[in-house]
């Protein structure tokens, strides 16, 4: 089923394309995914880095604040103050520094000299005695003594009223006076207050800040992240003399959109746009492919059509160059398409002797005159040199712009048709000839019988008479009667012969006035047929003003046809050769000026000229002898009959050599009296 296979074919191709399109889409989507993923990773890393930087900066801030505090704290004991002064100084200091919970002045033995509590936290040391913290203070002060500088204790939890508590840390600063240790200044730091005081609130917005243990346990919270779903965190260690604190900064992971950043968004949009474009392209492709497919089908259909034709097709451009030929045409002329295409004028399949005619026709065509729609007959040359008749039907080739670009011709090979026609005609002629022969035989038989009877009788009487004469005694009176009988039989034979000649003479009565051109015109188609077959050009030359002739039209036509056929048979294919231009049969008619001295009768002279081999002497001598022939299948009656017909018309049939070769047959017919 061609329909289904066409359908199947129509599907196979697009499916492949769908696969490619799909792959492209997947790739694009993958690319987009990877891009988004990487961009997200990048964003997250950047966020993490930012967070790390922030927490480092916080830690640094705190460190420098602590260092500055040390400077400030050193001033408390400058110039060896007494307790009151110190307390005053300490209270003032505590008012400015909320991170400090308590200041103590202790002697070298850890004995409390003076103390001051932060005004912001009044009752920190009421739930537990201060002595609980003494080990930490002592450790810090020991370390401070060792390094001769401030030192911190580890942080500790200090419960306060209400079940709450504070994370505290001690800092011990040794006090020296003129190189001698005079005691210690102990400052108690509140970790939450440190964070509250020193952390930049802008950095902390929405973030959670806390001090943690090394294992990440949160000790003191400054702020927490609201919600607390997906967090990132960064830590920084706050290295203090004697102790190290971990500062942890938490931040909610920033919610990223589908596209983490502008670049991805741009790339994504572009990819989507690309996909849409691709889809459009695919659709267009499919449509184009279908169109191509249909075109290819149409082309194949046309090709098959051309190949199946037995009619030759050829296209020519305006200069007459061949632009297209189909296989049938190639077969016809025996040349391949490659040999034919592009050849100009004269075309390779034009017979040499007809070039003039064809060039003329081409000129007519180039002049833009319309050629007959029903076509015209022409003669082409095969590669092997044989001629064949063709029927050409031509139509102008108009391009899409409406201008003529050449001609398209359909060429029909008529040789088979001609051959059949010729065969039929020959068959018909043979049949007629046979019929005529049979009739002639019948007539001859009848005639011989009719003549035999009296001859037999005469012979019998004569023989009998001789018998009588040889034996004179026997009935001599028989002789006269025998003689009378002989006479009677002889007369009978004469009557038979007379009746025959009467029969022949009856035909002579038909005479009519006919224009010589009409005589030639009526035999012309038959002559042209045979001439075309043997590549002979027929020239008809009728003198202007030639008078009508008085003749038996049918008989004279027969004579002309016979002479023309003889002439053409004298020029078989190849002799004379086509190139010389002598393959011409001329039928000419002219009027003969009356010779005033002899008779006033006017004559019209007919001439049939061929350029064959000419007549041999022997042939000339026997030319008009009945039953003499030079042809294999001839009867030898043609010329003899011709002569009889012409003589019946009071004319004469003569022949002479033609120039430069060949033979001319000539006869005269009486002109009809002008009316």
């Amino acid at each position, binding site marked *: 089923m061609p329909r289904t296979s066409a359908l199947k074919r129509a599907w196979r191709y697009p499916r492949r394309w769908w696969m490619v399109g799909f792959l492209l889409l997947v790739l694009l989507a993958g690319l987009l995914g990877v891009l988004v993923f990487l961009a997200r990773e990048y964003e997250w890393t950047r966020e993490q880095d930012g967070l790390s930087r922030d927490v480092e900066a916080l830690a640094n801030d705190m460190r420098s604040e602590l260092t500055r505090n040390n400077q400030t704290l050193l001033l408390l004991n400058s110039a060896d103050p007494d307790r009151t002064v110190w307390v005053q100084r300490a209270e003032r200091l505590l008012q400015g520094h909320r991170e400090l919970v308590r200041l103590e002045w202790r002697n070298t033995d850890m004995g409390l000299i003076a103390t001051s509590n932060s005004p912001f936290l009044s009752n920190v040391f009421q739930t537990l005695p201060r002595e609980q913290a003494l080990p930490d203070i002592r450790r810090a002060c020991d370390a401070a003594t060792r390094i001769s500088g401030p030192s911190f204790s580890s942080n500790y939890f200090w419960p306060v009223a209400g079940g709450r508590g504070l994370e505290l840390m001690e800092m011990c600063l040794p006090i020296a006076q003129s190189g001698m240790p005079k005691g210690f200044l102990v400052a108690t730091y509140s970790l939450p207050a440190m964070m509250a005081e020193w952390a930049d609130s802008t950095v902390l917005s929405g973030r959670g800040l806390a001090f943690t243990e090394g294992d990440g346990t949160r000790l003191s919270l400054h702020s927490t992240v609201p919600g607390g779903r997906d967090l990132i965190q960064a830590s920084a260690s706050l290295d203090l003399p004697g102790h190290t604190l971990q500062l942890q900064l938490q931040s909610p992971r920033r919610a990223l959109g589908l596209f983490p950043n502008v670049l991805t968004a741009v790339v994504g949009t572009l990819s989507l746009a690309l996909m849409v474009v691709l889809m459009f392209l695919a659709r267009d492709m499919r449509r184009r492919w279908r169109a191509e497919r249909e075109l290819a089908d149409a082309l194949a259909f046309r090709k098959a059509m051309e190949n199946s034709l037995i009619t030759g097709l050829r296209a020519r451009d305006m200069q007459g160059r061949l632009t297209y030929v189909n296989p049938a045409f190639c077969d016809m002329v025996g040349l391949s398409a490659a040999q034919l295409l592009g050849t100009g004028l004269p075309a390779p399949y034009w017979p040499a002797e007809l070039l003039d005619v064809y060039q003329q026709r081409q000129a007519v065509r180039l002049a833009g005159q319309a050629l007959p729609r029903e076509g015209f007959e022409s003669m082409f040359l095969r590669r092997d040199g044989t001629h064949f008749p063709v029927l050409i039907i031509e139509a102008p080739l108009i391009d899409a712009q409406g201008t003529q670009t050449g001609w398209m011709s359909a060429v029909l090979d008529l040789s088979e048709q001609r051959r059949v026609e010729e065969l039929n005609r020959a068959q018909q002629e043979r049949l007629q000839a046979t019929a005529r022969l049979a009739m002639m035989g019948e007539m001859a*038989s009848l005639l*011989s*019988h009719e003549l*035999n*009877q*009296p*001859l*037999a*009788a*005469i*012979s*019998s*009487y*004569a*023989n*009998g*008479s001789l*018998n*009588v004469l040889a034996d004179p005694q*026997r009935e001599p009176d*028989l002789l006269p*009667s*025998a003689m009378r*009988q002989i006479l*009677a*039989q002889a007369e*009978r034979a004469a009557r038979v012969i007379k009746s025959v000649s009467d029969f022949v003479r009856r035909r002579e009565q038909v005479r009519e006035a006919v224009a010589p051109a009409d005589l030639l015109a009526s035999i012309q188609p038959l002559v042209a047929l045979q001439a075309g077959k043997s590549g002979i050009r027929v020239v008809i030359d009728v003198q202007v003003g030639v008078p009508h002739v008085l003749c038996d039209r049918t008989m004279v036509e027969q004579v002309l046809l016979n002479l023309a056929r003889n002439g053409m048979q004298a020029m078989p294919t190849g002799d004379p050769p086509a190139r010389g231009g002598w393959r011409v049969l001329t039928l000419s008619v002219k009027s003969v000026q009356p010779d005033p001295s002899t008779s006033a009768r006017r004559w019209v002279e007919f001439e049939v000229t061929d350029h064959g081999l000419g007549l041999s002497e022997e042939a000339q001598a026997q030319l008009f002898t009945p039953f003499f022939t030079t042809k294999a299948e001839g009867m030898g009656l043609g010329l003899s009959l011709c002569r009889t017909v012409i003589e019946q018309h009071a004319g004469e049939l003569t022949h002479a050599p033609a120039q430069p070769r060949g033979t001319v047959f000539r006869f005269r017919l009486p002109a009809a009296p002008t009316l």
Partner: protein
Amino acid sequence: MSSLHPHAKVFIVDDDAGVRDALAWLLRTRRLLSESYRSADEFWDEVQGWRQEPDLPCCVLLDVRMPGTSGLALFEQLLALPWQAAMPVIFLSGHADVPTAVDAVKRGAFDFCEKPFSDNALVDRIEQALAHSTQVLALRQQRQRVQTKLDQLTERERDVMNRVAAGLPNKLVADALHISVRTVEVHRARVFDKLEVKSAVELANLLRGVA
């Protein structure tokens, strides 16, 4: 040909009066009797009218092509007669009829002559035909005579005669017929007497002529 019977007769059958008369006249100059018939039918009526077979030598000159019954058709009718051999037929033919005439000769016609004929040659041929006719007639008459004599023999005598003519001695004839030699001799004498022969050889010759 003086040996011919003076009353030997030539029957001429031709539609053309000129030819008929000329031939009759020619035959007359050669002292031969003739009778002319205008058509095949006329001659056939004549033949049908004869009481018995001809006892005089005769022959027929028959034109092949004639209006009405053709010469060939007449020849077919004549062939059917038991004594046809006694009346030989010579065909007269035109040029076109030669093959037909040749065919007729093959079927038993005596000869054919093509018109126009060389007359005396024709007459010679006619005389030969008449001579042939004479011979046939003589043979037929001889046979008739022998037959008449044979008809007089009895059954037994004929048996004896056949064996004697075959050359058997009396003894063997007697054995074959289961009769005595004496009886054979009696029969034998009677057969010789009736057939007018004198010896067994003569008997054999006589019988050979009939067969």
